[in-house]
């Protein structure tokens, strides 16, 4: 272990646990499969062109639907405290920065180069809104889906009930199309200003100091000050230092870098 931070090294913050990532990823893949299989019934041309394949898709829709429902339940049972933390993060008071973020969101998406967002807590107001809608949407999807499935096989619901459930299923699908597509684009982290967010859920769950400061300023600084979730890693993704040590090495590096520049300024 080097006593000094190298130029290629960077501090990271552990943002999501392994369990959170696995839960998210199973649900995400399930949602993609449910969309794909659901489209075969939703789009008449597909059902009509491939009726046998559509029947197979409908069976898979049920199996994957069960996975979608069971995964978060199992995860919640494994970590009840995580559920508590989740609700605490999502049901929080709106700060002035949250309001500013919401107001600036569309101009920001259209002109991220020049429109800059205020610092945010662990979950941005926009995230809270979008993720919240997705959670509610999936919940309603699950309920209406279960009624449509079991209500036409195990027991018999009335035609009116089935029609209402199908409309709920359709409306939630529309909401989810909008928010999931946006969520996937932003979360995949391939394009600016969201570059680098992909690893949060699909990799090691870590976010670089720079990205953390950019997206969740309040949270990033709080975590860096606390230090317990901070890692110092080299360019090969190898952990060089952890915790307080990683924080201190980073601080020294920043200060020295600034000092090197200082004499130039005076000239």
């Amino acid at each position, binding site marked *: 272990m080097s006593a000094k931070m190298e130029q290629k090294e960077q501090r990271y913050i552990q943002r999501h646990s392994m369990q959170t990532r696995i839960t998210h990823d199973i649900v995400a893949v399930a949602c993609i499969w449910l969309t794909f299989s659901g489209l075969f019934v939703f789009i008449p041309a597909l059902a009509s062109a491939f009726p046998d394949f559509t029947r197979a898709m409908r069976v898979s829709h049920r199996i994957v639907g069960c996975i979608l429902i069971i995964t978060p339940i199992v995860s919640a049972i494994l970590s009840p405290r995580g559920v508590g933390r989740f609700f605490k993060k999502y049901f929080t008071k709106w700060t002035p920065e949250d309001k500013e973020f919401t107001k600036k969101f569309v101009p920001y998406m259209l002109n991220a180069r020049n429109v800059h967002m205020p610092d945010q807590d662990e979950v941005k107001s926009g995230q809270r809104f979008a993720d919240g809608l997705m959670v509610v949407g999936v919940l309603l999807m699950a309920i209406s889906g279960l009624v449509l*499935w079991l209500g036409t096989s195990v027991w018999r619901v009335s035609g009116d009930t089935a029609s209402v459930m199908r409309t709920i299923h359709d409306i939630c699908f529309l909401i989810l199309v909008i928010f999931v597509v946006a969520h996937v684009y932003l979360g995949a982290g391939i394009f600016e200003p969201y570059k680098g967010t992909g690893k949060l859920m699909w990799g090691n769950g870590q976010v670089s*100091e720079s990205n953390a400061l950019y997206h969740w300023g309040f949270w990033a600084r709080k975590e860096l000050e606390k230090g317990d979730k901070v890692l110092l890693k080299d360019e090969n993704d190898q952990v060089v230092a952890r915790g307080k040590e990683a924080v201190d090495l980073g601080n020294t590096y920043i200060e020295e870098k600034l000092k090197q520049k200082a004499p130039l300024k005076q000239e």
Partner: protein
Amino acid sequence: MADLAIYYDSSKCTGCKGCMVACKTWNNLPSPIELNSQPYSGTYQNPVDLNENTRTIITYKERKRENAYGIDWAFGSRRCMHCTDAACVKVCPSGCLYHDDNGFVVMDIDKCIGCQYCRAACPFDVPRHTGVNVRGADIKIDKCDACATRVAHGMKPACVTTCQPNALDFGPREEMLTRAHERVEWLHKRGYADARVYGETEAGGTHVIMVLKYDISQYDLPENPNTNKGAASNVMKPLTALAAVGIVGGLGITYARAHGYHRDHMAYDTKTHDVVDMDKDEVERHIDKEAGER
């Protein structure tokens, strides 16, 4: 080709169930033969309702005979009404259900995907499905198709050919309607004031024309069949497509506008509370902890 229709005159029906037997025979629909395997309906109506092996039933409504000893029956026919404005055709996602040239609602059974949307949408609660189970791979619709294969060969539907009191008939829809109106007029003269024609305008005009001898409450028929129960979905589909295009387009603009945008590498010194731009080696801002900044 002019539309055809099945004619049913409830005032001539004797409730013999010959039509039910003929239907099962022609369409190869089995009946349960175990002792007492069917639930009891409380009347001679049996089976209680349409089911996956029963495409038509005669309904029995019993009531006390006025001013006389005994009971009266109101016989009715429950079957696919072959609506012009057919809710099932509108919601069928696979094109399994469609109107044939005669105006009857027929099905291409290979195309049925077992979604049962037709059942939910039908104002007459007619479509039934075979192979219903939790797995759901083998569900197929079963309902009256007006014996399409017989009609194609110039024959009448099986039920019609067997009707002994001529309560059932088959022919051009206009003729059937004229006959129904004549019969209702005759019934009115005989004192059946509630007698009426059913199917002339209901659900866009049905291809089963009925003469109802008594008030409509004596028959399992809705006064105003709602053929739009599943219509919301047909609005949601284009809306969802629009939303998908909108969001992809919006994100496309985001992508185009942010293309090539480079964010400077930032770092935070937890000792000095400075946020530093590491590419420019400049302190970008100081977090004034004493002033309560976070």
